[in-house]
Structure formats: structure tokens, C-alpha cells
């Protein structure tokens, strides 16, 4: 039977897809498509909030095996149908939106755990698994992935790999691309390939890192082996108040450059301390809130913590003790539930950038100036993932609803203008477009500007792998 409004050609494609994955795994109802037409990007959200219809894919397909992924990709290639990979759909950059319609390949039925290796401390899983489910499973065996992003409950392993995601303990345990051992990928021509067994070698460029962050433009990551860790014997947190941002950032820098190996450092600027920290943790304080944590063997943790406390006490205005550090850990996901999370009718965006210590503060003040030049708009930031050489700034702008145009086109235009101006402050001062949310649709147009001539490398790889440009078109500047 032909589905409503479908042409013979569409029904032929539908039949081919159903032939490969089964009728129950191909969805063409509007309600199924709608679920894949809006992610966490502000633009489609404001679009539907204003009563507009989002761009729908033509088909939503749920493969259950890598071979089925390969067959779907081949169908897309044969007919030159755009194909967008959808994991959890929780990305904030529009990376999973099927903006050219076509096929959405939802990976969530590729969710099996294949092996937990208690000798090599790795877990191999299909990449459609929701990461929290993966974490719960390895927990049963006494391990942890130590990958705890805010989106752990909704994003997939493949989504993290595709966007180079980070968890709150990344400062010690690494980002997702640091956790990867090897992966299986379906290329745009349908070939199934594997990267090398281990991630460290002198065997040419690292294919793992080529596909990490490729946002579904180079292929579909279908399986991955990542590191797992023992649960720590001890995990401790401590919080301090600082009079101002430079003092708090300097304390964080010293903790890192003295190589104390904290699992986490977070510094909240004065505005975010006054707003979010107070609402979620109930701490009403002036100044900047800093929380750090250490984990591992208790004796080592105690020494690491003592040195970090001494560093903070040099300039901190108040030692808030372990309780307010631990409550931050216990409430680490609460920030992301409405009403604690920013939501419409405000306009808002997270422009997380990363830079070296000598540049990050200048970027902060520069972006703040640009953002706050817009009426009714404030800028807040925290510094949440730290390296020996620098840190990331998780900065956000929030525009009061009164200043957000009612017309959705105008609202989006203003949003994009603000975004471009603010993120260029980072680009012009040694920062990058993004640290861990990806590029997606949102900043696709800025990739060439950021990379300069080096962008031809990414572009030529794309041409070689995907000559028909079917994979996630319109994203990543490719």
C-alpha cells in the first residue's frame, strides 16, 4: 500500500529499505519524523516554539546490525539520498538534523555490549548504546568508563565519538577521543572497516582520530572499544570562593601545571556563581566558586588534595569545605533539567571555546563585551575541562525574552549574528570554534575561516570518501 502523499519513487526506496532492515525498522509517519527533526539546537527549537514546522526527513531507519548500516548507506549512495546519522539527538549544534531531508539513520538499536575485557581494561560496544546504559553495565563488573557528561543519559557512545565529547572527569581520565582504543566504521560507499587494534603506534596517521569528530560526514561509527577503569578507592571534592575570576583561574592553572592530576576543576564566573550555583546548590555567595576533585588511592588523593588546598588558600576568600564540593558532584546532572536549564522563550547558546592559559581570560572579557553589547543579553561562563596548557571556557549568552524577535526568521537572524560576532572574538585571540559540542550546522560556515588553508585536508578527505556528498550534508563545513 502506498503511504499517503508518496510517489512511486519514494515507495520504491521505502521497499528497498524495508527489504534490508524489516518493515518495523523503517518509519514514515509524521510523528516518527518529527522526533528526528528537532535536537537541542536553539534554532529548530525556536522554530517549532513559534508554531512553524521543522524540516522532516523522508525516512527514519533503525538498523540492528553493522551489515544493515552498510546496506542502508549503499541504498543512499545508489540513489544519492542524503543520509544523516542520529544517535541520541541531544546535540546542541544541529549536527544530527536532516536539513536536506532524505534518510535519518537512527543508531539506537545498535546497542549491544560485545565484550568487557578485564585484562586490558576495555569495553567493546555498538555505538548506538545510550552511554548511561553502558556505564551501568560496566559498573556491574566493578568498572567505570569515567565518562560523565551532562548528556550521559541521552547521548550515545557514537554521538560522543562523532562530536569529541567530554565528561566532567575528563581532566584526569581524558576526553572520549582519549578513551578510544579502536572502532568499526561503515564508509559512505558501504564498506565496513576497522581501525588498528591499538591506538598508539608508528603506523601512519591515526584513523581513530580521523573519524572522531567527523560528525557522520566521513562514515558511520558502528562499534567502538574504549578504556574502562577501576572504581576509585577514594573520591574527594572541595570548594572555595574567590574574590574574582583571575584569582580563581590562576589557582586552577597552578593545580594543573604542578601536575596534581585532579579529576575535575570547575571555576564559575561571578554571574554564574550568583545565578546557577545559588539555584542548584543553594550557595548564595559573592565572587567566583571553584570546585576541584581528586580520586584514586586514598593516600595519594589526600596528598594531592592537600597541595591543591594550599594553592587555593593563597588567594581564596573562603574555604567552603568538602560538603559544597560533594553537593556539586551529587547535583552535577541537575543543572540540565528544566527549569534549571536555560530554555525558551530566552535566546541562549553555549559557545564553549578552548585556548591556552595566557589567552583564555582575554577571550572571556572580549566575548563578554560583545555579547553584553546586545540589549537584554548577559554572558555567563565556567571553566570546566583543564589541561596542562590551558582550559576550556563553557560560556553562554542569555537574551531576555523581551529582546528576542517574535518572528522566528528574525529571531534566528539575530541569534546567528550574535553568535558569529562573539565566536570570532575567540578565533581572533587564539581560541577555537568549539571544545566539545561539535560544529554541526551552527558553525559549519566558520570552519574554513578557522582552519585556513589547512581545511583543504579535511575537504579532500571528504571528497575521496564521499564523492556523492550524501553523508550528513551541510555540516562541519564539508
Amino acid at each position, binding site marked *: 500500500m502506498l503511504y499517503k502523499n508518496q510517489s512511486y519513487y519514494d515507495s520504491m526506496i521505502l521497499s528497498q529499505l524495508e527489504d534490508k532492515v524489516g518493515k518495523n525498522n523503517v*518509519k514514515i*509517519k*509524521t*510523528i*516518527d519524523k*518529527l*522526533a*528526528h527533526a*528537532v535536537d*537541542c539546537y536553539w534554532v529548530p*527549537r525556536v522554530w*517549532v*516554539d*513559534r*508554531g*512553524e*514546522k521543522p524540516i522532516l526527513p523522508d525516512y*527514519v531507519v*533503525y538498523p540492528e546490525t553493522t551489515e544493515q548500516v552498510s546496506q542502508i548507506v549503499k541504498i543512499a549512495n545508489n540513489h544519492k539520498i542524503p543520509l544523516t546519522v*542520529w544517535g*541520541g*539527538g*541531544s546535540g546542541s549544534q544541529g549536527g544530527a538534523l536532516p536539513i536536506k531531508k532524505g534518510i535519518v539513520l*537512527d543508531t*539506537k*538499536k545498535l*546497542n549491544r555490549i560485545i565484550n568487557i575485557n578485564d585484562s586490558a581494561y576495555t569495553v567493546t560496544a555498538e555505538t*548506538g548504546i*545510550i552511554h*548511561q*546504559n553502558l556505564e551501568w553495565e560496566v559498573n556491574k563488573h566493578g568498572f567505570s568508563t569515567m565518562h560523565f557528561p551532562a*548528556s550521559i*543519559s*541521552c*547521548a550515545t557512545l557514537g554521538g560522543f565519538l562523532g562530536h569529541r565529547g567530554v565528561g566532567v572527569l575528563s581532566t584526569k581520565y581524558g576526553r572520549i577521543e582519549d578513551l578510544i582504543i579502536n572502532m568499526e566504521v561503515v564508509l559512505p560507499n558501504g564498506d565496513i572497516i576497522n581501525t588498528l587494534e591499538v591506538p598508539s603506534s608508528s603506523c601512519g596517521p591515526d584513523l581513530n582520530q580521523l573519524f572522531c569528530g567527523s560528525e557522520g560526514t566521513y562514515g558511520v561509527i558502528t562499534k567502538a572499544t574504549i578504556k574502562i577503569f577501576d572504581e576509585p578507592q577514594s573520591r574527594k571534592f572541595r570548594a572555595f570562593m574567590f574574590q574574582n575570576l583571575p584569582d580563581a583561574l590562576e589557582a586552577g592553572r597552578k593545580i594543573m601545571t604542578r601536575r596534581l592530576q585532579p579529576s575535575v576543576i570547575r571555576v564559575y564566573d561571578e554571574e554564574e556563581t550568583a545565578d546557577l550555583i545559588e539555584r542548584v546548590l543553594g550557595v548564595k555567595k559573592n565572587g567566583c566558586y571553584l570546585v576541584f576533585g581528586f580520586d584514586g588511592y586514598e593516600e595519594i588523593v589526600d596528598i594531592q588534595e592537600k597541595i591543591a588546598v594550599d594553592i587555593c588558600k593563597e588567594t581564596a576568600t573562603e574555604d567552603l569545605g568538602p560538603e559544597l564540593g560533594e553537593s556539586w558532584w551529587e547535583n552535577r*546532572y*541537575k543543572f*540540565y*533539567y*528544566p*527549569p*534549571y*536549564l536555560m*530554555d*525558551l522563550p530566552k535566546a541562549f547558546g553555549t559557545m564553549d571555546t578552548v585556548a591556552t592559559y595566557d589567552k583564555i581570560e582575554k577571550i572571556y572579557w572580549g566575548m563578554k563585551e560583545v555579547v553584553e553589547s546586545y540589549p537584554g543579553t548577559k554572558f555567563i561562563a565556567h571553566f570546566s575541562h583543564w589541561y596542562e596548557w590551558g582550559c576550556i571556557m563553557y560560556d553562554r549568552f542569555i537574551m531576555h525574552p523581551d529582546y528576542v524577535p517574535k518572528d522566528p526568521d528574525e529571531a534566528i537572524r539575530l541569534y546567528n549574528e550574535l553568535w558569529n560576532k562573539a565566536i570570532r572574538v575567540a578565533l581572533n585571540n587564539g581560541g577555537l570554534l568549539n571544545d566539545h559540542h561539535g560544529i554541526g550546522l551552527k558553525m559549519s560556515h566558520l570552519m574554513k575561516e578557522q582552519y585556513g588553508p589547512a581545511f583543504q585536508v579535511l575537504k579532500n578527505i571528504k571528497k575521496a570518501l564521499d564523492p556523492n556528498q550524501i553523508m550528513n550534508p551541510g555540516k562541519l563545513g564539508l
Partner: protein
Amino acid sequence: MNIVKYQQVIDSCRFCYMCRHVCSMARVTNEEEMTPRARALVLSMVLRDAEDYSEDIAESIYQCCLCEYCKEWCQGGWDFPSAVRAARVDLVKEGLVPEVVQNVKDSLMKFNNPYGLDGPISSELQEIISQNTTPAETLLLFGSSVIYLSPEIGLKVVSLLNKANVDFMVLEKEATSGYELYNLGYLEEAKEKMVALVKSLKMSGCKEVVILSGSLHYLLTGELKNMELELEGIRVYHVTEYLLKLISEGKIDLKEGLDKKITYHESDYLARYSKLYDAPRKLIEQIKGANYVELGWNKGRARSIGSALLKNTYPELAAKLLKTRLDEVIESGADILITSSGEDKSSLVNSPDKPSSLQIVDIVELIDDLS
């Protein structure tokens, strides 16, 4: 539209993914459109006239099993299941209710159960009902799942009440409580049935009601006040609470022990509606010699196996829920799975995924057998 009252909930949930991994239906189907946020998104579009209610939307809204896991999990405190109920009221008014739902409604109205069963009632149970309609202070409410699916539980509870010398009565004919109709969106019919139930309880002259059904327990202890009805002084016990009371009063003595590994599954109604965790566990603690293990997901976070409504509307989805719960039971290594609902016992016993070595028994049966 009825959902207008829930716009704040709907708008909060439409872009939020934080409960998708625990949503019962999303968990077992792995489909995006089964998540609370997908349902909220489409309802938000209906509210904005960007979508009209349709048969497809109706199917999606009725495929929510109303287990309330999302509400339990939400750190923002949003009650999305209430928005689903409100949407169902709209769908009833719009005449868009799926046929499978209409069939259950017809069964509730005609046969007083959601199973489409026009009897027969177990002859033993019928005899007990016939013999115990004389007014007494204690009124025993079986619920349709015990009457139609698991009469053995009814016989055992009567046995226990007799052992404890409790003078009890039952209703000559238990009508449907109205709560299932309420959850399906048939508000008027639901209210009519609830009024009739309250009236029959008041007219019976009883001082206390002992209930075997989780949904009935929640209706009488929780939802009734929202329908502006009250029992006026009649005390309501779930059967586990009542048996615990009888044991503490020395009226029931658990003479026998049980040298087995046992575990307990609680229904959605006890886990997340009534939040009745302690009484069943304290009752289980009375069993001598048993090795009790909690399932990994328990109390407010006990995994759902769906209610009678899901089982009788979308049985293939209910079967998936049952399988995942049984997998958990198997992983626990328990010899005996204890339930506290005739509905759950019947579903679990009849699941093709139940291992033959696993014994499934209602807590009432177990207590009677050991006393």
C-alpha cells in the same frame, strides 16, 4: 483542549532528554518516537496549531504505559504522565481513540474488567463471594485481576483472614473502579464508576477496606481526592499492610521457613503511584530462612512490566517489558519471584520468557502457605 492546562509541563519536556534512558517504552523499543520528549514535542505542536491530533498521534499517546518512571526520575519535578492523560481526554473527545483502546473501554464498561472476559469466575471464589456479603467492619476488595486472572490469590487471602479470625465481607459484585477508564481518557465514565464504588463502600457500613490491587489502592488513597470524592472515615489498607498488621498482632504466625533465594517485583502502582515499598518488604522479612535479594531496579525505580491497559492494547510492547524484567530476575539468581499483584503474577507466569525453573508466587499465597 484539555492539554492547555499542562502547557508548562509539555513545554518543559519537549526538548528535554534526561529521562529517555529510563522511560520504559523507549528503553525496550530503542525508538526515538517512544520517548517522553518526542510525545511532548508533538503535543507542543498541537498546542500551537502546527499539528492536528491524528490517529498516529493517538497511537503514540496510548503507547505510553503510564508507568510514571519519567516523573520519578525527573530532577526538575515535572509530571509528564498527567499531560499524557490530558491528551487522552482530548483524543476521546476528538473520536481518535485507537480501536484497541476502544475495545478495552468497552470491556471495562460491559464486563468490569479490561480483559474482554465475560466470566466465568472461579467457582470457589464465587462461592466465597456469595457467602461473605453480610456487613462486617472489614471489607475485602479483590480487584478484577484477582477475580478474572488470578483467583488463587483471592482464595489465599480469604484463607489468611479466616486463620486470623477476621470477620470480613466482600461486595456481591465488584464493578470496575473507574481508574482504568480515567487513565484511558474517559473522564465522565470514570467519574461515574468511581462515584458508584465510593457509594457501595459507604453503604456497606465497613470501617476498613483491604485491597489486593495496586491501582485500586492508589485510587482510594491518592487519586480519589482529585476527583473530589472521599471515603469519609473508611481506612484503606493494601493487603501487604494488612497482613503485616495481623502478624504484628499475633493473629497470623508464619510457622514454616523457606530455604530458597527469593526476590520481589513491585507493580508500577505500588512502586511509583502509592510508593508503598516498606510493607511488602517487611512482610518478606517475616519469612524465616529465606535468602532475600533485591532486584537491581527496585522501589521507586522498579522496572515496569506494564499494566493491564498496555497488555490489552499493545501486547507486543508489554511482552518486551516483561522480558527485560525477567532477565533481571534471572540475573539475580532467585529461585522464587514474589509479586504483590494478581495482574503482575499472571503476566509473568504466562510470559514465554519465564524460565521453567523460576517459581512465581504472590506474596499472599506465600504467607498463607507458610502460616
